[in-house]
């Protein structure tokens, strides 16, 4: 508990608070209107998704294409619980239940499939996400292809901020622990890690389950903020969306994922009405990035000062453009 008062930790804590207060202030004054608040929600959801996928793909080196599947589990569980119990308790319970459900599915899917390597794992996770989507399409309780409507909206800026910062802090601290180091060693060289006594299967499943858990949280926030769900929202394209963020930011860089999430959310807000052009730009971004800078914007480096100050700066810059 002592190190909470260390200089750096305190600095981080204060900058988190300042970011929160600054944006809350702008919302109260009305500079961030509803339209940009939706972008803010997208940014937060994408940060959670990207950081959790980065844990799986960037840090542990397991290529997953099924992140949207986990997100959809969290979203539907949270939506169904809040519809039947529209109170704050129901909402919190829904998000946690959704995250746990996603983590459970992640563990169940991860245990057998994480024996596979590289592209096989990618295809297996892609198949899993498709299966989840088809199950939701055919279930009674999810209202099939028509989707769930009128989910009570509980998420506001405070909740989004708490969950986003929580996710980032937990994953960043996990990576600094011995468990996190074990995960990184698997990415670097699986055989070497195994011969050094790292239980690779265990750590792969842990990181996969954790990633799924936080994807579930992102799904819950999505359901509660946008109050409309349908299975098509969580298709292959959503997984690719998250992957683009992770790759653009840099595989193995949490701050990179955050920057990329903010950047891409702002770009796509401007391109809202041209969805085809947006996808073409995404596609070109992926190709050009892989050809000329395969390590992404940040590589595996982190911004050392304060990640959260950066978020504040970015979103302020976004506002000035309006």
């Amino acid at each position, binding site marked *: 508990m002592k190190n909470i008062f260390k200089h750096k930790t305190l600095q981080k804590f204060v900058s988190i608070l300042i970011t929160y207060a600054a944006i809350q202030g702008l919302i109260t004054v009305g500079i961030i209107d509803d339209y940009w608040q939706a972008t803010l929600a997208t940014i937060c959801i994408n940060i959670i998704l990207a950081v959790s996928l980065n844990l799986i793909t960037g840090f542990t080196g397991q290529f997953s294409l099924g992140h949207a599947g986990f997100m959809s589990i969290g979203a539907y569980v949270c939506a169904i619980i809040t519809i039947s119990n529209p109170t704050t308790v129901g909402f919190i319970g829904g998000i946690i239940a959704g995250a746990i459900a996603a983590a459970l599915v992640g563990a169940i899917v991860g245990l057998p499939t994480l024996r596979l390597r590289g592209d096989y794992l990618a295809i297996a996770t892609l198949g899993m996400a*498709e299966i989840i989507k088809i199950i939701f399409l055919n279930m009674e309780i999810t209202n099939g292809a028509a989707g769930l409507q009128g989910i009570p909206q509980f998420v506001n800026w405070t909740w989004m901020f708490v969950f986003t910062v929580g996710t980032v802090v937990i994953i960043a601290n996990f990576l600094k622990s011995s468990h996190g180091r074990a995960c990184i060693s698997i990415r670097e060289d699986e055989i070497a890690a195994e011969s050094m006594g790292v239980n690779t299967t265990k750590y792969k499943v842990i990181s996969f389950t954790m990633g799924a858990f936080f994807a579930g949280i992102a799904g819950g926030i999505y359901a509660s903020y946008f109050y409309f769900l349908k299975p098509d929202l969580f298709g292959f394209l959503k997984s690719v969306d998250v992957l683009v963020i992770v790759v653009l930011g840099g595989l193995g860089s949490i701050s990179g994922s955050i920057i990329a999430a903010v950047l891409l959310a702002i770009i796509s807000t401007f391109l809202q009405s041209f969805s085809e052009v947006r996808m073409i730009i995404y596609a070109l971004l992926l190709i050009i990035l892989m050809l000329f800078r395969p390590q992404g914007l940040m590589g595996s480096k982190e911004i050392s000062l304060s990640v959260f100050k950066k978020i504040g700066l970015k979103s302020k810059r976004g506002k000035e453009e309006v």
Partner: protein
Amino acid sequence: MDNFLQQVINGISLGSIYALIALGYTMVYGIIKLINFAHCDVYMLGAYIGYFCMTSLKLGVFPSLVIAMLACTIIGVLIEKIAYKPLRNATRIAVLITAIGVSLFIEYGTMRFVTANVRAYPPMTGWLAERFKIGNMTITAQQILIVASTIVLVALLQFIVKKTKMGKAMRAVSLDKDAAELMGINVNSTISFTFALGSALAGAAGVLVGIYYNSIDPLMGVIPGLKAFVAAVFGGIGIIPGAMIGGYFIGTVEVFVSGYGNSLYKDAVVFAILIIILIVKPAGLLGKNTKEKV
């Protein structure tokens, strides 16, 4: 019983399409260990090229088929040269992400040009509109066309791979790229040739699907592409007969699930098969397990 045989016939027709696409996946994977996500979009482009040959140029089915195959060959080689060749020594993940990028680019680029609307293939006339009745079963001339074209193309492919010098080079490169290069094989042109062959088959599959199902759209390749990949994995990726077996198996399973069960679950069953195969026998039906060396 008649219903069962009818389903078998439908399954074989659908399976032929999957087999044609799966061959492209399997050959490319065999030679550069890449899941070519863009392959399913070459198939989509084939369908569109065939469509424009038949409607704008008023060509017959066979000339359209040949033109679509030629055009897809060129597209496939271009994709390889522009997007994959500079990444020959990059990590597998980087190439895979590029492949996803190329795939999205083709899909949405096409959408920009031809709009996202579903288009209907021109109705078939002459002998292609015929239906043959055997007992209570119906075989359409289109199904015969699909199966016959598949057999001819696969026989041709088998001839190229087994009997020609280029085929020998392909097999050598897929076995050991460095050793093949040392033996004087031009690895780059061999890889391009592999892409050319696979894309031609995908183009043919596109036109045949257009004729069979009568409707095409820019995202038509995504799900069949994934299923064809499942077929390739099922048979053992990198193995040409494996892709054929896988294609026919997946096609038949799909038709049976929608015929006897719930058609909404047909995709889920295919992906479940994939996951089971990957867990039980990752090398596929005809594949051999290779030990990993440090």
